């Protein structure tokens, strides 16, 4: 009888490096440098675009995995973004850390950062729990039925968005940055906002953590295997469904994290924030190839950069430019940059 594999004997399959894929981001940035002309403006725009891309990636990663693993298309993903951002306004608002004498207004920078970190953790916990409820109420009953999935998750988004409005009001409310994160570093002529650097940093950490979990742990192995062939993993006796709930909750929490950062980036938030970002997220996961983490990472960077470059060069075309980008990539690779799931 064969011995069960021990931890040390696993050989995890290496992912293939696709130079063409990674070349896209520098290519876009290079083209933009020519178009923009001034290197300092270009640097500012690029950092802003990367920051935006990182936030989009955090939000999109959960959605793309959920689709890949369980063939569930969640149109309500945007609601976690809004929830995260609104919870952050409460945690950092006048009744939270923003109160006179609170951490947010303390002169020490580490207290301010700590306040932001607490807000992020609270928001992630809340959106994680919301994800659990959402999965139960709106996703589980309609497994395997795409049409109903789209309709129900959309309906779920409306319901939760209305609940947000009833709690926080319909007006836009400010989500102020702490003193320590305001302002910019000056490199020569280029100004790089501190917050954007923080967003890039957090994005890289999230990417690294995801890569380690997905690439170096057993759970990650099961998730990746499940994305490629769910039935096979199930027939080997692994509870794919429970795995899926875990991915859904983690994805929701990541969307909450992205929402907090997105709100701080915009500095004001409205209840419609989720639906607005949703559009960008869909573009990202289509470009990236449904189910692929690396694909959605590259796609998110492309979309973020594209949005910022065209926002500077031709503001009216900003949203159309992303659609054009998507169309161009779909012509080149009809299944997205790195398709993982089988065609269904």
């Amino acid at each position, binding site marked *: 009888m064969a011995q069960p594999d021990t931890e040390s004997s696993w050989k995890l399959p290496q992912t293939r490096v696709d130079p063409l894929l990674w070349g896209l981001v520098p290519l876009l940035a290079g083209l933009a440098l020519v178009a923009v002309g001034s290197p300092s403006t270009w640097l500012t725009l690029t950092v802003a675009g990367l920051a935006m891309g990182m936030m989009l990636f955090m939000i999109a990663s959960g959605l793309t995995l959920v689709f890949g693993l369980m063939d569930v298309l969640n*149109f309500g993903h945007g609601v976690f973004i809004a929830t995260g951002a609104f919870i952050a306004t409460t945690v950092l608002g006048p009744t939270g850390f923003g109160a006179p004498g609170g951490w947010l207004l303390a002169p020490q920078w580490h207290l301010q950062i700590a306040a932001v970190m607490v807000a992020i953790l609270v928001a992630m916990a809340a959106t994680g729990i919301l994800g659990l409820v959402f999965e139960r109420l*709106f996703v589980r009953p309609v497994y395997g039925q795409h049409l109903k999935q789209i309709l129900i998750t959309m309906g779920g988004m409306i*319901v939760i968005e209305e609940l947000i409005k009833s709690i926080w009001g319909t007006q836009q409310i400010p989500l102020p940055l702490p003193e320590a994160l305001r302002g910019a570093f000056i490199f020569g002529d280029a100004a790089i906002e501190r917050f954007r650097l923080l967003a890039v940093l957090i994005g890289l950490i999230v990417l690294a953590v995801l890569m380690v979990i997905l690439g170096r742990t057993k759970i990650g192995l099961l998730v990746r295997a499940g994305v490629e062939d769910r039935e096979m993993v199930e027939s080997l006796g692994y509870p794919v469904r429970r795995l899926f709930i875990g991915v859904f909750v983690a994805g929701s929490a990541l969307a909450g994290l992205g929402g907090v950062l997105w709100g701080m980036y915009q500095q004001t938030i409205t209840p419609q924030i989720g639906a607005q970002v949703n559009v960008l997220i869909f573009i990202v996961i289509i470009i990236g190839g449904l189910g692929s983490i690396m694909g959605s990472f590259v796609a998110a960077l492309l979309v973020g950069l594209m949005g910022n470059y065209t926002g500077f060069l031709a503001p009216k075309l900003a949203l159309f430019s992303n659609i054009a980008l998507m169309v161009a990539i779909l012509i080149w690779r009809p299944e997205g940059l790195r398709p993982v799931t089988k065609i269904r």
Partner: protein
Amino acid sequence: MIRYLLSNDLPRSRVLSILLIALVITLALAPLLFPGAKALAVAAKILVFVLLVASYDLLLGYTGIVSFAHTMFFGIGAYSVAIACSRLGPSWTSIGIGLVGSIAASLALALLIGLFSLRVRAIFFAMLTLAVASAFQTLASQLSEWTGGEDGLSFRTPEVLSAAAQWRDTPLQGLGFTVSADGRLLAYWGLFVIVCVAFLLLLRIVNSPFGRVLQAIRENPFRAEAIGYQTVIYRTLSVVISALFATLAGALMALWLRYNGPDTSLSFELMLDVLLVVVIGGMGTMYGAWIGSALFLLAQNYLQALMQSLVKPLADGVAMIGGTGPLADVLRWAVGLMGPDRWLLWLGVLFVLSVYHFPEGVVGRLRRF
């Protein structure tokens, strides 16, 4: 004769037939039965919605494609007529130019979206349409020189359709009604006739061999492909046809209102309304458009006021008790949930519940009795 007109697709339920006949007759005689601006406005909106919803049903109910860009085509129709009439003056020629322009624009856009997304993966379509529709919405508000931005466009229609044009010296009189025989009446009946004809046309389309293929694709795209039907072509055609009817509905709406703005024809909420009406009326049953639209618009226009009046005493009571603390806050929040401002919340709940428990809609339910 009736069987021929309805393309051999009868309501197949006695209750449903009676309801439909009553509804159509009521709508036809609405200006005589319910004089007053609001009632007529609601009746006209029901008619426009019937066409819009029926065209969406072709897509969602018969082909099984979810599109979030249906109001975009509706908006193209409305904006084209509005722009043509406000730029070229109120004449039939400018309406014609607006219509032709909008149909060309919708045709091109629908073809493009359909071919791109459906060729790749049918499931992309929902996401892609969401993106395109929101981009179009932004575009419409940015081109404010042409579209009037958030304020929209008010324009005049040809003289014949205005309230000042009398086509009879004496007002229409009958059993207890007196209605001035003006152009608005003519406009309403024109709207009624066009909607009925377009609806019968849609009914004919879904009951043609082409419509059968669409239903086959909805049930099992793989099998339809295997039998030899090019699903991409059929799906794209379905998108195009439904877009054209939506464009027509938009043009009619703008002509009736003599105004068009982003909230009346492009907003995402309108898209949700359409989705809800299709689901409530019954997906894949053209007749659901009539029942659903009537139910929904009556509720929207009269139930909201009722909600307001019901909640008012409750809210006053809570305000009287007053007090602070979490309990009072929760109470106030709960009362606020029931107010007319949160109308969309209950719409969403209704939507989710009807997709779960009531997927065949009113028409489907009636047919089972």
